[in-house]
């Protein structure tokens, strides 16, 4: 009933239902550019990510990516970690380090996911203009795995960096059911006297690593 009454009220002011496309007095503008370009998109991404409170590293080869993640584990003295299998990091953590790598079944429990000190997710691509990484929730053991752990590492293919959001949305498909998110640095707030504080409700740190030269 409300649906019909709202739509009727709106159509009264729209010159009847189903206006012919293109015949509108207020046409929908095109979506094409030209848009901003960067000489070195990855370098610009790194500057913007730093401005958003994140850090970035470059790793050449699977071993270097693993070493980057191990370094973060040590940095945060993480004991409980989870690593997305999509990152291909099967050998982390290496050796007997006292670090427990939770499997997907364990992390499906919210309490376990919330107790994670570090999670490593696969990022689809990076956006140079704003330091964001697109992360699609595919194959996640827990729907909130991007926001529950204390620290996040995003592994992004070394050649996956678009200049602006316009190119980003050409790579994203929102038609299928699911969840996806742009992550631009760690969780933050400035709600007390405009003082920036990193680590509001979500991750207290976010590191992006370019995975270069990995198939």
């Amino acid at each position, binding site marked *: 009933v409300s649906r019909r009454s709202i739509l009727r009220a709106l159509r009264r002011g729209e010159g009847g239902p189903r206006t012919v496309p293109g015949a509108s007095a207020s046409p929908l503008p095109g979506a094409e550019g030209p848009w901003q370009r960067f000489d070195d998109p990855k370098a610009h991404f790194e500057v913007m990510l730093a401005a958003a409170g994140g850090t970035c590293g470059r790793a050449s080869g699977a071993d270097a990516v693993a070493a980057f993640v191990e370094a973060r584990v040590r940095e945060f003295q993480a004991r409980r970690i989870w690593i997305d299998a999509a990152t291909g990091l099967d050998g982390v953590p290496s050796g007997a380090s006292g670090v427990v790598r939770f499997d997907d079944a364990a992390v499906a429990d919210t309490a376990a996911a919330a107790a994670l000190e570090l999670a490593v997710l696969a990022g689809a691509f990076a956006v140079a203009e704003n330091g964001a990484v697109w992360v699609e929730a595919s194959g996640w053991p827990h729907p909130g795995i991007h926001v529950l752990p204390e620290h996040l590492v995003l592994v992004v293919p070394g050649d996956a960096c678009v200049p602006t959001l316009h190119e*980003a949305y050409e790579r994203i498909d929102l038609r299928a059911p699911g969840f996806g998110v742009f992550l631009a640095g760690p969780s933050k707030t400035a709600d007390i*006297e405009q003082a920036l504080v990193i680590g509001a409700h979500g991750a207290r740190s976010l590191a992006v690593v370019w995975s270069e030269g990995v198939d």
Partner: protein
Amino acid sequence: VSHPERAARFAADRDRARWHDQALWFVRTRRDAAAAAVPEWEELRGRAAAIKRHTLDHLADYLETFEANARAHGARVHWARDAAEHNAIVRRLLSERGVTRVVKSKSMLTEEVGLNDHLARHGIEVIDTDLGERIVQLRREPPSHIVLPAIHLRRGEVGELFERELGTPAGLDDPEALTRAARRHLRPGFLAAQAGITGVNFAVAETGAVVVCTNEGNADLGTRLPPLHIASMGIEKVIPRQADLPVFLRLLARSATGQALTTYTAHFRGPRPGGELHIVLVDNGRSALRSRAAYRRSLSCIRCGACLNTCPVYRRSGGHSYESAISGPIGSILEPARDPARHASLPFACTLCGSCSDVCPVQIDLHRQLAALRAELVERDLAPGPGRWAWRVLTGWLRRPAAVVALGALGRAWLRFAPGWIRYRPSRGWSDWREWPEPPQQSFRQRFAQRERRRAAGGEGAP
């Protein structure tokens, strides 16, 4: 109580008012820097305005398309004509599932419709999870800014509040420590919540996706943990295409805080696995506002807050002086347009400087709409204070040359000879912070007559 009286109360605390003014101006300068870093900024504003204009002209079609596509993702879509219907729908969804604990991320719509109070009356506890919103919720007051809800408070006041409500140590006023305390306080709330309520920044008709932006991650936590997600949105939040999203997202955070993008920009296509997503489309006066040509474009607003940060009146009077869910320039249009008798003083608080229109990312002609609202309020005899009769008096005076001459002479004599305490009496309010100008020696008429006499005599002043 009118805006000027409430503003005077805020301004009486001069340190606070000064800090408030400068803090918001700083946000404005960050916005300027972020905008300047995008060469196509003006092009984006133009596109955004055109997309919104087009969408508002075809709103019924786009809402139907959005509804169909959102349903295809497994979302349920509800329609609410007004605040009461919205609140009833949300309460029914919660009650039917036995929900008593809800977390909510920032949503100006739920402020507009008074959702928290409604749910509390029915035994459902709502925890606002945005830090600023949680602070004002604990203080039992509304947000004072649409993006920075607690901008009217100093750190010491937040410290005292947290000492009382969260048991933090006395005298704690470090923002970092206070934020940590809030995180510890709110985490259990997220884990125990049975449902999450969010607003909506953008709803994409073409794909049925709903986009929610936060910096804290509270919308993500609040919706990805509990099995029920309710997203409330005004019907004007729909945009046609996925390709329109980048236009608005590039403008939104830069205009709001000077960030290139919010930290979390979540895209919901249906519920989380094993959960439910309900989207409530709310009219609450929007279709009526759309039918009024002068104010229609105010529905393009994307709630970035840039017009508040730049407004010389808002910065010096504080958000609570507007006594409305949405304050500042945009609130001074939306609220009086909805309820003119109650909010009649707001459009008259404006100086018509036009700064709001200059920074608006969707090119809303805010100052023109405010001027149009004033005219309408005067015509409907709703204008506050002297506005109700002053223009009639002024018109009558200007029509009578002899009266202009007489009052001019009287005015000059008054300014020259009346002692200060009398001189400033008729203009109290205006002249509390201003000096009257030095009165001229002669009136314009006298000078003109003198000049004509000199010219007739062939002396100086001849062309």
